[in-house]
């Protein structure tokens, strides 16, 4: 029985070997595989495209707005800046003797029109430096993950600081002006007085912002400090030389305009910078 089955199987194998050999297809050549992939490529592309569009902008997140950012930065930082600003400007108001505004009783060379232009830009640089980013790397990282252009967040914070300092300076200048007018001994040329500190402050702030979004914070502070020192030297020279008030005011006006232009340019720059504001690297990377 067994030999007979073995013979049958052997015979069957022999009979089927040729038809099976013909039925088995040779493996595809590399060229055939490549042409198959090429033929299927449109399908792959369509699948990829549908896959790519699956992630959309978070619908819970609203469009960026400089005004909203300014508001939240203000609510976040107002206590520190109000305390610092009020202390400094209260001191300035008290330092100016309304009966002798151009001859300070503590330091004779410090008068109303030299105190404000010297102190306001300095305070501005100090506040910008201290508040430009969170000191804790973890919070800095969390704050940098925002759908807003990250530099815009930083811009809003710096702008808020500038706005605050300049508003304080404006309020205290007005108080000083009123006190001098009430005392009646001297007349303070108010607009040139305002321009005197506003021009240099905006120039310093504008330069700091302009450099910040191109070369980082360290260089921004260095540049604005250098400009401040240069202005101080020139200012001293102008004090020693007799210049008409209008000439001086024109110079302050030009500085103010340059500062404003730099601020506007920084705003547009801040909207296109991709890299994170003060990420874990601790630097402000620019493209």
């Amino acid at each position, binding site marked *: 029985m067994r030999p007979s089955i073995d013979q049958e199987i052997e015979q069957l194998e022999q009979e089927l070997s040729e038809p099976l050999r013909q039925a088995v297809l040779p493996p595809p050549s590399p060229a055939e595989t490549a042409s198959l992939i090429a033929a299927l490529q449109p399908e792959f592309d369509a699948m990829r495209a549908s896959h790519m569009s699956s992630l959309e*902008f978070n619908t819970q997140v609203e469009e960026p707005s400089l005004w909203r950012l300014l508001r939240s930065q203000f609510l976040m930082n107002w206590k520190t800046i109000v305390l610092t600003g009020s202390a400094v400007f209260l001191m300035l108001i008290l330092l100016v003797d309304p009966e002798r505004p151009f001859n300070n009783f503590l330091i004779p060379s410090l008068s109303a029109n030299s105190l404000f232009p010297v102190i306001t830009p300095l305070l501005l640089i100090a506040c910008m430096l201290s508040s430009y980013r969170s000191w804790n790397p973890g919070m800095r*990282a969390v704050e940098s993950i925002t759908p807003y252009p990250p530099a815009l967040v930083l811009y809003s914070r710096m702008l808020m600081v500038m706005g605050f300092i300049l508003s304080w300076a404006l309020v205290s200048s007005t108080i000083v002006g009123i006190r001098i007018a009430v005392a009646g001994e001297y007349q303070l040329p108010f607009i040139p007085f305002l321009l005197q500190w506003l021009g240099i402050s905006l120039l310093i702030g504008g330069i700091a912002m302009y450099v910040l979004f191109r070369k980082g914070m360290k260089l921004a502070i260095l540049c604005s400090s250098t400009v401040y020192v240069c202005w101080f030297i020139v200012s001293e020279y102008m004090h020693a030389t007799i210049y008409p008030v209008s000439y001086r005011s024109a110079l302050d006006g030009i500085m103010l305009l340059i500062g404003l232009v730099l601020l506007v340019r920084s705003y547009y720059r801040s909207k296109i910078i*991709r890299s*994170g504001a003060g990420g874990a690297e601790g630097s402000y990377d620019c493209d």
Partner: protein
Amino acid sequence: MIAIDNLEQQVGEFSLRIHELRISRGITLLVGANGAGKSTLLELLATVRLPRRGSIQYDGRSVQNDLPLLRSQIGYVPSDIELYEDMTVYKLLKYLGELKGMYHFERIESLLTDFRLTPYRDVRIKRLSGGEQRRVAIAQSLLASPQFLFLDEPLNGMDSAERKLIIAYLNKYAEGRTIVTAIHELDEWEAAGDRVLWMDQGQAGFYGNMHQWKADLPYKVWVGQITREQFQLYFDTDRNMIEFREAEGGKMDLRIVSKEPPFHGWKAVPPTMEDAYFIRKFTRSK
């Protein structure tokens, strides 16, 4: 899915290199020794750092082309975060929500409820315990209900009840989303985790599901008892001990990694998640 290709990042002396990695939806447990690159990888995934070389794609969106979109869909908790301690819980969440473009403040209320922070709503951060502060830190990452969540040791400083609360919340939240969390206690995440990513000296040493993590290990786990003298001798010569504790009769209960039974009569047991981590680390050191 997150697709990482040819990623290279140098951070000081440390370098991270991932040739190819696909992180699927669900919870990926990121494990590895200190300094293995877990935090650097999380910072890259969270877009805190931008890759110097290589690419990371999130459902086909890249950091290079779609950064604001991605950041609208990313939540992140760093390990070293120190929340602004003078702010109240609510104000801090509101501030961070606004930074993310979130002006629907009802989300804050629901997170306060979910994380049992409602009683601390108007309490300053500095008055909270470490675990409560950590809960606030996790809540802030969820403000915009992001699709991608990256957590660096989120359970640090929490007691066991808080840990269970957070794991249960994240387990539910992960449905249809991607969570990558760096952890040290693997076993407590076993039920919630979907996959394990083991970072080893700046490279992805393993990525796979929980079953794969515990399978194909080159060593077995053995449990048994030895005398104190044997233990002393063993402790001095071998470093393959997972766990030991004193037993009755001056003996020691041991849990050991070995190819063969270390002593007669010892029993092989299925490895836990922690065992698998130990074995992989042990194998690497060999």
